[in-house]
């Protein structure tokens, strides 16, 4: 492996490759910044420009766009509560609250540091055991996915504050209901589309979230009257030692969750970031701060989405199966350069594979160097009075929504969900459970339908799948665990009293 690594760095460290790696991660950061314009579109649009390059150079640049976008997506999430990438939605919850308290610089810094650590951890794992991991992940079918989705749904509790469980639950159910709009996977029949063609593919998730978070927030702030711009001293923009040490565990857990989910073909970094946030809130000693600007609430999902982005390359490189939408476009790129992706890639194109992997190291170092000093700079943007920011955010949101698929329908979705977001804020209804319900609801239903089809309509097929059973058990424990613990400890105390 060491030989391979040396060969990889040798291939990646040529001046040309270094230059395009830099261009790629920079382009990725900007693409991640722009709401609506995600890494998938970014790679697809820039792909033709690289056709005259050497294959390795082209892939280094395109991959740089992909993981660079994971860094960029955070910036708008934190500053203006407008996630640039779907995987950065969760970051908006605590990141934006941190920004409101003048800690935007710290939030952006920890996101960059978390992303970097996660990238290195997942890269080492990727290099050490991509092929065996990819084989294991194949055993992960619909029943196992179903179990993971149930696990995801149990984290809903984490997304609502202690006094508002019921509201959180209600919003999650609303999200799941909204997820049923569109063509039903099993029969191909449309549901709740009212004859509208655009609704056939369901409510578009990114547009819903731009509406809820960005437009809703602007409307709410306008009603509140002129908010004070955040005047933070430059010193306050830096991350503190205490914040760093609080984030350690979150980054580690986020990296592992992200890597594991990223290895599974199809499961993406969005789900990984949600799960990491949910887990973090469960285990954190600062539970009450979540939702009000807990730094772990930024560190965990940001680490998770970057780890997942890297782990997406596990099935892509080891088996020739796309790990997600962006890696699917990259697989197309492989073919355009005359390289046949598939299980033989590691053996037939070692220099390409290892060069690409080595470039991930270089690219992530570049991103860290780029993002750390930029974090306080970006945070300074918040000094701009909100009066000037509102129109800017609105324009970016609507143009961004339109640019996703060049369709006015997207703009209307943003508009309607902007209003919904405003009223949710007004009546103090949590938004994250709704978004989680919308994301997981659709995946949950798909896994349920597939599992049922695999068993010929019989769900007991789950009983024959040990991994699925284990995950279901974990979900049950997470759900019932805290109550059980309380019950047990009360009994113990009770007995102690009687004994005295």
């Amino acid at each position, binding site marked *: 492996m060491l030989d391979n690594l040396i060969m990889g760095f040798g291939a990646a460290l040529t001046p040309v490759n270094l230059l395009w790696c830099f*261009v790629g991660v*920079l*382009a*990725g*950061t*900007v*693409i991640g910044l*722009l709401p609506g*314009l995600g890494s*998938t*579109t970014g790679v*697809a*649009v*820039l792909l*033709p*420009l690289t056709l005259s390059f050497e294959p390795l150079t082209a892939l280094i640049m395109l991959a740089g766009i992909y993981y660079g976008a994971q860094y960029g997506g955070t910036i708008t999430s934190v500053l203006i509560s407008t996630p640039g990438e779907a995987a950065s939605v969760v970051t908006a919850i605590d990141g934006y609250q941190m920004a409101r308290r003048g800690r935007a610089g710290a939030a952006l810094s920890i996101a960059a540091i978390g992303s970097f650590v996660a990238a290195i951890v997942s890269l080492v794992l990727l290099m050490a055991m991509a092929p065996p991991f990819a084989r294991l*992940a*194949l*055993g992960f*079918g*619909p029943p196992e996915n179903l179990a993971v989705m149930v696990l995801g749904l149990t984290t809903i509790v984490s997304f609502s504050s202690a006094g508002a469980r019921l509201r959180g639950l209600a919003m999650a159910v609303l999200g799941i209901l909204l997820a049923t709009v569109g*063509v039903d*996977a*099993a*029969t*191909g*029949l449309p549901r709740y589309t009212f004859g509208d*063609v*655009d609704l*056939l*593919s369901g409510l578009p998730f990114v547009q819903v979230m731009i509406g809820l978070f960005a437009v809703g927030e602007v409307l709410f702030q306008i009603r509140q009257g002129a908010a004070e711009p955040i005047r933070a001293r430059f010193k306050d923009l830096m991350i503190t030692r205490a914040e760093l040490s609080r984030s350690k565990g979150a980054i580690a857990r986020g990296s592992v969750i992200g890597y594991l989910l990223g290895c599974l*073909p*199809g499961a993406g970094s969005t789900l990984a970031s949600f799960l990491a946030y949910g887990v973090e809130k469960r285990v954190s000693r600062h539970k009450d701060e979540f939702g009000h600007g807990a730094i772990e609430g930024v560190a965990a999902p940001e680490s998770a989405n970057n780890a997942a982005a890297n782990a997406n390359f596990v*099935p892509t490189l080891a*088996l*020739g*199966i*796309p790990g997600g*939408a962006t890696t*699917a*476009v990259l*697989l*197309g790129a492989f*073919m*355009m350069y005359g390289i*046949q*992706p*598939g*299980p*033989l*890639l590691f053996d037939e194109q070692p220099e390409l594979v290892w060069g690409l992997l080595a470039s991930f190291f270089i690219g992530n170092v570049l991103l860290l160097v780029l993002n750390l000093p930029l974090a306080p700079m970006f945070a300074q943007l918040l000094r701009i009075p909100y009066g000037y920011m509102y129109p800017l955010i609105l324009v970016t949101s609507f143009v961004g929504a339109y*640019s996703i*698929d*060049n*369709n006015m329908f997207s703009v209307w979705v943003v508009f309607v969900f902007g209003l919904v977001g405003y009223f949710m804020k007004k009546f103090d209804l949590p938004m994250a459970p709704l978004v989680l319900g919308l994301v997981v609801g659709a995946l949950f239903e*798909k896994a349920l339908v*597939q599992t049922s*089809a*695999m068993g*010929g309509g019989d769900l007991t097929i789950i009983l024959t799948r040990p991994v699925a059973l284990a995950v279901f058990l974990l979900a049950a424990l997470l759900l019932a665990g805290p109550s059980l613990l309380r019950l047990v400890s009360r009994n113990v105390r009770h007995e102690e009293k009687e004994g005295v």
Partner: protein
Amino acid sequence: MRALLAAVLLLGAVACGADAGTADGAWKPRGDVRMIVPFAAGGGSDLAGRALAAALEKAQPGLTVTVENRDGGSGAVGYSGLLGKKGNGNYLIATENAILSLPLSGQVSFTREDFTPVAKLAEDGGILVVKQDSPYKSCTDVVNAAKSARVTVGMSGAYGVDNVIFTMIEQKTGVTFQRVPFESGGELVPAVLGGQIQVALLNPGEVVGQLRSGDLRGLCVTTDERYTYPEFSSLATAKEQGIDVSYVQFRGILAAGGLDERERAYWEAAAKGVARTAEFQKWLKDNYLRQAELYGDDFRTYLGQVDTALAPVLKKPS
């Protein structure tokens, strides 16, 4: 810089609404031409749309063709978008069998008659594949197994080519397959590799890597004749194995409906130039497609024939 370019390209999509020019004599599109791809980036239709757009630009110097992914509803969103461009010669769509299967589903408001057939340029076949440790060695084995036991097959969507072919096999042989629904062909490869489903039908380009490594085994092809590509020439056709089924996916170009004679003539001539470009030939080779050209009215006739054959297959049992 590159990122800026990407942003400009995408924002350009907002600003551009160029109308077709009407100079004297021959018609030529004025301003950018839009090639709609009714499926998401990365899939077979996307590759086709991008290759055909590049080949059009090469064949018609000075022409700019911008690709636009408008996915959703198994292609319905993209075609509906083109429906609204009636009479506008600046809009094309990268078409395939969804233009026939969607109207047959009864869920959309357009039919093939609403668009102008420009050209059919290539055909993409299907290969029935199983995991390497599967007991099935041929498509006949699969059909025989389905007579007495449950055989799970993947389905990439209710209107996908695989669903059509499995239904055709069912109607010819009287067996029933247990369909497990997925959202795209890309999801089927890991499902069949992981043993979640027993059989999948995939395009050669989607599985050539796994076939070469031996992780998957091809059983038969659903084309009329065997492939000439050496990677697949040893695979028998379904017909050779006694299953009288053949169906291919066509790839081509439609223009918006309601075009006049000169606009139609321009696009037909442009499409004829496409087949001669290196871009087009590379796309064929990279994706193991078969060159199969039909232009204008010939393409229209072909669409009618396939439509007639497809109707009894996709008709829902009442």
